[in-house]
């Protein structure tokens, strides 16, 4: 693959300001952790 070509197509090839978590993600992060931790706890106590 031609990396120059890739840069040409890419709309967000600048890494500055590229946010992974933002404010809207915070409730979902909590949601994700609840599911994950609940699953582990239930599994451990069931064994």
């Amino acid at each position, binding site marked *: *693959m031609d990396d120059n070509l890739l840069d040409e197509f890419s709309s967000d090839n600048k890494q500055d300001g590229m946010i992974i978590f933002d404010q809207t*993600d915070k409730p979902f992060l909590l949601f994700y952790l609840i599911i994950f931790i609940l*699953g582990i706890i239930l599994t451990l106590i069931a064994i």
Partner: protein
Amino acid sequence: MSIQFTILIIYFIFIIFLGILAVRKVKASDDLLVAGRNLGLMYVSVSIAAEYMGGLGTIGTAEVAFSQGMGVIWYHIASSFGLILFGLAFAHYYRKYNVITVPEFLYYLYDIKTWKAASVLNVVGYWFFTIIQMTALGALVTSVTGLDLKISVLICGIAMTIYLLAAGMWSVAFTSVAFMLTIGTGIPIAFWWVMKKEIPLLAASAGLSGYAGLATALNSVGLNATALFSPFSLGGMAVFGYFIGGILGIPAAQATINYSFGAKNWKIARLAPVLAAILILPLSIWTGSMGLFARAAGLTNNPKLALGATLMSIHPVIGGIGIAGVFAALISTVAGILFGCASIMAKDIWQRWLHPDTDDQYVSRWTRIWILIIGISSSFGAMTLPKILNQAFFVYSIRGALMICVAFGIWWKRSHPDAAYWALVVALIGGVMYQFNFPFNFEAFFKLHISVWCTILSLITFVFISLRNKWTTQTSSELPPFIKYRKGGGK
């Protein structure tokens, strides 16, 4: 009306409402097809995880555990490996190219004929897959509600089509949050209940709970609990097959990975599949253990019914929550496949190929029309389920050939457009010969699954043609308009 039935009905109405609620997010065709490339990390990760956890990962893993033991845990370990591979090695390329579909990515990597061939193969494969998965969904609803299978399929198919029509990928993202919550809580709660409350009630468990009670119960009905609990109970070849399926099946599977295309940026596109992999990892521990419980308790003789029989036999509220979890896993997968199929049909075949000079409004309208056509036709297909479907389903096995084209296109500079095109064509021809045993029984002779067979054929074809053919002016004339300036140049 049973408690399980009531829980399922309330849940289904809530899901349709949630899907329709997403309509306010849609203003242009990109909103429908890739959620305006505005999905955050959690939306992308839960959408991928919910889509991936389907009938095979729930009912299928319980079925395998019922017959062959807990070695089935490798199914989700291998699937997680495939998702992590996709996330770390492929996702950012797709996202940086701003593609909407996998065939569109091949358009950028190769040429027009490869893109057209990939589009047709994807649409046909996913259309059949939608019908097959809708049948599994209808069977689950029938087992809980007692409704006729055809009615169950029709209700599920129409409801799903309605909420996808409202907002496309936004609907999938919204409902996936509810689906993931249901799968991620309903199934482990049911598992916990079975292990702690139901197993001690079995006469053969000697009052013990957890795996100790399950082992005692299995031994007392003449089974070898040590062998069934072994993580290697399926044998090395089955584990190897799971890994091959995970590696070949995920990085070019439109229905699973298209949520990464809708990510806000390539970093989210890359990280989300890794988080999805963590979510799906423990699923077969829960479903497999419930499958083994069905066997120890003698709930059924049919492995396919192991999970459903367990959930219907326990406390109705806990069982209802568990069934809602399995229902969520199935419906999220069917909705994802239906949407993936409609995306390729509307964007690649209908608009870009057949009606290239059309505006955004036209794309939006036809995306919805194709969701409607594929949703309704698949519902009726699942109701009648013609026998030809079982034969035609092999087209879905060709996704391994797509993976070969994508991987080589990214990392091998000699990859030639003719190689990609013929790799797809040869995989299709080889798949037809394998499926119809022409001229002999390939499965018996080579001992290979059809998807592995198609992938090997496409790999050999791809490498051979790429080494033999060189890029010429003629090759470049077949390039898509965006990159024609590279006329005569190598890759």
